[in-house]
């Protein structure tokens, strides 16, 4: 197992009210896990805890997060830094605000690369180009020369994916990566994740969109009120949801299937 989360709970420090309760999950290399839930289900907080960006002043996590045999929650911050960013990459919800608007994309990528691998000099460019191409960006040279605002949301998303690729991240955590995107870019972004998975990375994707989950496939975990209420492979759950809530979610994200044929009368 690449990542195993045992009995993870996250509570608000002030009220000690648990927001995530006794969550277990695991991801293998080359596999993906989708966490599905509505807003307020604790999915984003889980994501933040796993990627180490949880605000420890407000929230108190407990349990275990074992990545590659090492426990992350109790690890001292300096050691954590070697893992986060380099081995665990986070793709944030809004790609528009994730990059520095005043620095060219290529330069930002090179900086990140240097920070995590110490690589600089002539090799950098070819490495960046390969990463961008692998993330599904055709005109990689052009992308590197652009400022973030010159690229569309879908392209920026793929730049972020390329950044995860170039540092050879083993685990890629994506928090609602498709919410800010249009339908056509949404499909392309999910496809980029699929190709990442094929290259051997593990994907943890958080979404409220069943469409995204079904396109990505793999394992699924449905969260409600901080608890895991259903798990299984995406297609199993989609075909035979075991929980009423899951059923309601599927129905609500597939509205068109509820349309009766009566419409033929209108035309």
């Amino acid at each position: 197992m690449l990542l195993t989360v045992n009995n993870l709970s996250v509570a608000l420090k002030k009220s000690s009210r648990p927001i995530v309760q006794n969550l277990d999950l695991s991801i293998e290399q080359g596999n993906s896990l989708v966490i599905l839930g509505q807003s307020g289900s604790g999915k984003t907080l889980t994501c933040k805890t796993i990627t180490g960006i949880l605000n420890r002043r407000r929230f108190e996590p407990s349990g275990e997060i074992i990545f590659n045999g090492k426990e992350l929650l109790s690890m001292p911050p300096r050691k954590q830094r070697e893992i986060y960013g380099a081995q665990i990459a986070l793709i944030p919800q809004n790609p528009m605000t994730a990059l520095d608007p005043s620095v060219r994309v290529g330069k930002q990528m090179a900086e990140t690369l240097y920070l995590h691998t110490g690589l600089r000099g002539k090799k950098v460019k070819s490495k960046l180009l390969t990463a961008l191409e692998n993330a599904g960006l055709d005109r990689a040279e052009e992308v590197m020369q652009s400022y973030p605002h010159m690229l569309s949301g879908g392209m920026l998303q793929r730049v972020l994916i390329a950044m995860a690729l170039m540092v050879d991240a083993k685990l890629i955590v994506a928090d609602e990566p498709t919410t800010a995107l249009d339908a056509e870019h949404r499909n392309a972004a999910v496809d980029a994740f699929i190709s990442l998975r094929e290259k051997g990375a593990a994907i943890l994707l958080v979404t409220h969109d069943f469409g995204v989950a079904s396109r990505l496939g793999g394992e699924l975990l449905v969260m409600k009120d901080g608890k895991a209420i259903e798990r299984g492979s995406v297609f199993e759950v989609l075909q035979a949801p075991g929980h009423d809530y899951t059923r309601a979610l599927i129905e609500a994200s597939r509205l068109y299937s509820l349309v009766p044929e009566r419409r033929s009368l209108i035309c």
Partner: protein
Amino acid sequence: MLEAINLYKSYPAAGQKGKGTNAVNGVDLVLEDRMTYALVGESGSGKSTLSKMLTGLLPPTSGDVLLDGKSIFSLGRKESRLRFTQMQMVLQDSKSALDPRFTVYDSIAEPIRNLLNVPKQRERQMVAELMNKMELPDSLMNRRPNELSGGQQKRVCIARAISVSPQLVIFDEAMSGLDVIVRKSILELLKRLQEESGFTYLFITHDIDVALYIADHILVMKEGKLVERVCYTGSIECFKHPYSRMLLDSLLPEYLGQNA
């Protein structure tokens, strides 16, 4: 009832004089009573610009919008305001569309006060009815927007829009950003309201799922032009344009397997 004739809107491009890009590029549109329309397209396709022109909030570069046969851009000052008794719009982000200092009651009552000359008592009664219709509990009446959930904010916005019983309600991306379950319950409610009160709806959305669920007529927009108009009969076979097919492709694949 609402007719758009050959609408163009161009924004001046930065740096170039005279040359501009056409956000809306020659759109003709007729909206008939008691129908539900959906205008689908990606962001940047000009659908938002089009909706602003249809409501008269943005003057077109050329072309005209007729409301019941009269151009909405040549109305007098007072008539121009009164057009909002006939058409209303629900905006995308309901949180910022509500004045943070207004209570729910004041927000819903605002169009009634401005547009319908009714006594205070009747106004109170109307707001209570509207809240009831939108399934908002009475206890929320004196709350402020930041105390409401996203779904409740959206309901308040819709209640405000239908408070003056308009013929046409335009939803400008109003269903995006909502949780699927909340979205479904609001759409169901809107369908019921339409049957009761005979509104015409125009949904502006990038979500083809919503469009297929609620609309009788689906208009697909790309690069400022309407590339496809479909009278939706429950079968997606009627979509021919490659762009429409691509949009449909983002739906849950299972369904396509069943019906295609």
